[in-house]
């Protein structure tokens, strides 16, 4: 190939991608980081204020609520999503009749636009018009919980909806991993008299460590991207009680127009999300090695 390679052709080949990527991705990040250290309202020129936006964040109770809600969603997603998806993947990889039809059906929610998912779930969770409370009433249970829009349950409901949307995606990854396990190990253990549960516990689970790590990392990074669900289901309300970090960042930047404070929030979401993903992957790798 060196006959055809010149500095000029190389530059021409690489330039378009590099230019678009730099202008629309790298520059915006630097822009956000820079403005997070200033005071900027979009009109008068930005003045450098050092860490004051970040200090303000420490005092900001809504920010604290948004971190807490993100934490709740993260906790539920990490503890439930991968294990439930694993069980379903095991179920589907056994000889279930019609598994080839069930798998794409289970995956279907993952292709629906998140904003549409939010709209759909209003009609499941809304205290007045939702399916869940209608069912409760139909079976004679008098309580009508405020699944969304109340003061406490919203983050849990959002976590559940996130679970619903992602489970088929994680099932598919784990299903593929289960199918790739070497067959002879399973056969040998069957001959040795291992029960199906023992095979799961001592063969399948340990051999899927790496896949569990990938899935957990995907779930963790995914949680920090939740935005549309909150936007559609609660709008962050009432009085910001159901805000997650990203939705609060969006509110601060585009509704209250506190640009520099919004940028500081964006930088923090970025850093926390990246750190969480790295820690997850690193932790899983170490556990797999141990």
């Amino acid at each position, binding site marked *: 190939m*060196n006959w055809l390679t010149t*500095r000029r052709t190389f530059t021409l080949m690489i330039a378009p991608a590099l230019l*678009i990527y730099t202008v*629309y991705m790298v520059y915006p990040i630097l822009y956000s980081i820079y403005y997070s250290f200033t005071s900027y309202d979009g009109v008068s020129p930005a003045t450098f204020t050092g860490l004051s936006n970040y200090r303000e964040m420490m005092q900001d109770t809504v920010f604290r609520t948004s971190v807490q809600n993100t934490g709740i969603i993260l906790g539920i997603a990490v503890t439930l999503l991968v294990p439930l998806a694993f069980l379903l993947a095991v179920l589907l990889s056994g000889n279930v009749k019609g598994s080839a039809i069930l798998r794409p059906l289970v995956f279907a929610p993952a292709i629906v636009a998140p904003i549409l998912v939010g709209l759909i779930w209003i009609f499941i969770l809304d205290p007045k*018009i939702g399916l869940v409370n*209608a069912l409760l009433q139909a079976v004679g249970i008098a309580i009508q919980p405020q699944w969304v829009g109340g003061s406490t349950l919203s983050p849990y409901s959002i976590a559940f909806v996130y679970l619903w949307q992602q489970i088929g995606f994680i099932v598919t990854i784990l299903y593929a991993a289960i199918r790739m396990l070497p067959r002879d190990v399973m056969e040998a253990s069957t001959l040795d008299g291992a*029960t199906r549960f023992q095979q799961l516990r001592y063969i399948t689970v340990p051999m899927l460590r790496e896949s569990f790590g990938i899935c957990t990392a995907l779930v963790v990074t995914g949680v920090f991207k939740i935005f549309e669900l909150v936007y559609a289901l609660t709008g962050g309300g009432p009085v910001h009680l159901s805000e997650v970090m990203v939705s609060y960042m*969006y509110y601060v930047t585009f509704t209250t127009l506190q640009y520099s404070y919004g940028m500081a929030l964006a930088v923090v979401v970025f850093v926390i999300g990246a750190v969480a993903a790295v820690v997850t992957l690193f932790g899983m790798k170490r556990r797999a090695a141990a």
Partner: protein
Amino acid sequence: MKTTSTQRTGSHTTSLPGRRPRRARIIASAVAYLITFVILLPLLWIMLLSFQTNENILARPFSLSDLSLANYRQALETLDLMVMYKNTLILAVFSVTIGLVVSYMAAFALTRMVFRNGRRGVQNTIRYYILAGLAVPVYILLFPVYRLDIALNLFGTHAALILPYIAVSIPFNTLLLTGFLREFPEEIEQAAIIDGVGLRSMAWRVVFPLMRPVVATLAILNVIYVWNEFPFAVTLINKPELTTISLGISQFQGVYSVNYGAMMASATLVLVPQLVIYAVFQRQVISGMTAGAIR
């Protein structure tokens, strides 16, 4: 399946050979079908509601009397579905095509081009520089891109969205394309060079056709991304004639207020075509969306 394991004597064996597999299979199948039904229930529910009258939705949602198409008539009158589909299609076609072309050119240059001195330092550095973009959540880009579009005089045009969509797709495109291009056999290139092929034909006529499966995977993944994208759309679209499907959906609650039936009919009108396309291409869609996680 063989069920002739009657020779097993291990104390762990609690099963009744020959009987357990069949019963277990029926139970497992029943559970799997039930779970699948529960997962699909929300989608089926809004489709049912789309045929209900508003009074029934509020008072007797399970009633199956008075189902009608009235909601759809109303939805089609209120909603500019054509505009939403047209805009989303324009964005998808341009951003995915341009994104793939520039990514492929870059990936080709990063992996297949060899400088006479044999050093790959520049190429590796550029590759890592682009791959770093995989870690970037789009939310940090929203406001800067908004300002950038205004400064470049693109605000209020399709390009305002096409450019960030391309930028966001470049890192993953590059990851997958460089991964496959690295393993491309050198012999084919050498044979082509002996045949007197130039760089451009090498990239597009010799190597590209062999990359079709990866390109198809990326195309599907990118189209789904643009089709469902909301954060950029809500930030960068300022006039009704640019509305995309996602942005349109976000306005349903405002448009229909408490007219739930029409709202659900509208939701069904965007949901069903997507599910039909998914049903046709499900194998490719699933492999495309899980491409990063499954080797």
